[in-house]
């Protein structure tokens, strides 16, 4: 692989290490109303901490919006806008267009303002996919979209989405006499984002918080749209003990269920190789949503997980023709 074509990888940004971890107050204030042990709000808090306060945030309707913004309180320390469920990407694209033209006309200082939209898996992979696709295709300069994926519609009560994993029992894909729970495979959102030929796509997990925080810093630094798909454990919806959010995030990566990778200028890069995966059953064990699965079911899922992981490895070993 020749790195000279990975232009976006060369865009400088201030890297976070254990030593340079941002100090000072959070950008998402404490006192929000997320559930005990919420992995999503943990991810969100770290993501916005990495960005500081010099950016604009847009939220889709969902858990994170509801729990952070009951009037007259708001947990958001930077300019923040929520309009509706399916349109965070479109709203963010408008904010960026507004900022950009005002900057061009000299009405705003000549400085990039990252605009970051946050949506859940339903707001991203289902109802918001059109708005997101449009925004990525239009190539908004300072646009980053973060999908906080807790693998179902948790805010409305654990209904399945297209990001719900195969076999998971939800309130609308319940396990039953005739059902193994969700009977479709998780929609591959990072691949869909990558198909828009945007400069930066990544997956991230709150268990690997420095990796995650650096990814959003890089996303915000790279000119052009970026998409980050964040694993966001939901103890309430997954029927899991609240103290296991971080542990489940780690197991998801180490079992290859949720691999950590980046797609920079089309080039896949696996950030954390998993040569000796933890058994998928180990990852499933703590989560009530998978409790009904048999050994055969888990074997079938493991096969698919490995296939998808191997496919990623192949992609990462394949040199992608430069497009720039």
């Amino acid at each position, binding site marked *: 692989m020749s790195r000279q074509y990975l232009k976006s990888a060369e865009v400088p940004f201030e890297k976070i290490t254990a030593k340079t971890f941002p100090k000072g107050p959070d950008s998402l204030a404490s006192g929000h109303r997320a559930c005990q042990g919420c992995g999503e709000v943990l991810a969100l808090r770290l993501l916005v901490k990495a960005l500081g*306060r*010099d950016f*604009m945030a*847009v*939220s889709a309707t969902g858990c994170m*919006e*509801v729990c952070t*913004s*009951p*009037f*007259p*309180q*708001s947990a*958001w*320390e*930077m*300019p*923040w*806008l*929520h*309009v*509706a469920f*399916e*349109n965070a*990407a*479109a*709203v*963010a*694209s*408008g*904010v*960026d*267009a*507004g*900022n*950009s*033209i*005002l900057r*061009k*006309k000299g*009405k705003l200082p000549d400085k990039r*303002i990252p605009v970051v939209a946050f949506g859940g898996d339903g707001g991203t992979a289902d109802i918001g996919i*059109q*708005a997101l*696709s*449009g*925004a990525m*295709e*239009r190539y908004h300069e300072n646009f980053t979209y973060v999908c906080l994926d807790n693998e179902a519609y948790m805010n409305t009560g654990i209904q399945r989405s297209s990001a719900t994993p195969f076999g998971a029992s939800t309130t609308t894909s319940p396990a039953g006499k005739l059902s193994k729970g969700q009977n479709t495979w998780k929609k591959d959102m990072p691949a869909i984002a990558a198909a828009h030929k945007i400069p930066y796509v990544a997956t991230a997990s709150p268990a690997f918080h420095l990796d995650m925080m650096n990814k959003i810093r890089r996303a915000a630094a790279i000119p052009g749209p970026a998409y980050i798909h964040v694993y966001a454990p939901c103890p309430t919806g997954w029927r899991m003990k609240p103290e296991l959010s971080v542990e489940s995030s780690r197991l998801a990566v180490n079992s290859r269920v949720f691999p950590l990778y980046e797609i920079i200028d089309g080039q896949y890069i696996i950030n954390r190789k998993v040569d000796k995966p933890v058994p998928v059953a180990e990852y499933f064990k703590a989560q009530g949503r998978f409790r009904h699965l048999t050994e055969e079911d888990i074997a079938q899922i493991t096969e698919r997980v490995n296939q998808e992981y191997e496919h990623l490895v192949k992609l990462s070993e394949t040199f992608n023709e430069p497009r720039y």
Partner: protein
Amino acid sequence: MSVTDSTKPVGIEVSLAMAEAVKLAEAEVVAAYPITPQTHIVEHLSDLVANGELEAAYIPVESEQSALSACIGSSAAGARTFTATSSQGLMYMAEMVFIAPMLRVPIVMAVANRAISGPINIWNDHSDIMSVRDCGWIQIFAENGQEATDLSIISFRIAEDKNVMMPFILNIDGFTLSHFIEPIVFPEAAKVKKFLPPYETTHKLDLAKPMSMGLLGAPEYYAESKKATDNALLGSKPYVQKAFDEYAAIFGRQYKLVETYRMEGAETAIVAMGSIAETAMTAVDEMREAGEKVGLVRLRLWRPFPVEEFRAAVRGVKTLAVVDRHFTPGFPEGPVATEIRALMYHEDDRPRMSNFILGLGGRDVPRNHFKYVVEKAKDLGAAGRQGQYEMVGVQE
């Protein structure tokens, strides 16, 4: 040399004239999705941006839902924002239409009024805008090309007035107004700059003064939020007239919230909105010539409803023939008639009133329809009967 440099009337399609007016208003962001018959407005704006005549960001979004979403974003960022839509497009963005007023984002949206499906029909009536009547925007209906052009500038002034800060819908009849070529006098660019200074606001997303917009309104605050928004809408009325008056002082064309035509001594009044009022005026002339004591009342401002102005306009009239371009399925009267009846209910000398549905889905509205409704309204009034709409000319 641009058409807007001309000091003489220019023959130009109304959609294009409106786009030119939006250029004179120096809109900074336009986000739009194509739908007939709105297309010529946004196509021409794209041209103006592409040729450098308008320094703006044109966002070619993938749907109307995203069109208004992007507009809300850019307006919240502090940019002067314009969009246009019609019919199914307005339906598709309806969710955001209802959210925008609460956010107090002064977007201006032209709606080229068109029937809503089904059956699918691209022609003019008011079923699109009436279906989102309660969205909370300032809503105005233009009658002709000059008015549509002037209002394309005035609307920004009203919407962005710091005492108003509300989104604004400018209705123009699809095709029968949007696609007509009319002689238009363009306001002088330098004077427009004076009338409409650059948009400045503190109500925006600002890194220096971070604000959260679009918070959750729980039961203990929802009603307060709705009331505050309605207070803003109701409170905008004097600023609408103020902007009209100031525009008249500079450009010489005076607009009012409610227009009357030959209402002196009128016993019967036609009530109409939009471009068919032009046809109605001709019909009134002909009826007056024949000795009929008839006049026309046209609602220019639809929201906030000009209650006092309307009552004053129809004072002393015996019979009202109220024209609707939409109807309310399952209810005896259309939306305009229903509202007017409600407004007149407590008046001591309230007129008899009948309701006529005209021009659905682009059905032609000739002069004799207005003569018919006047005769019919008088007959029904004399017989003491009123209250069930008549769809004029419908084949049953």
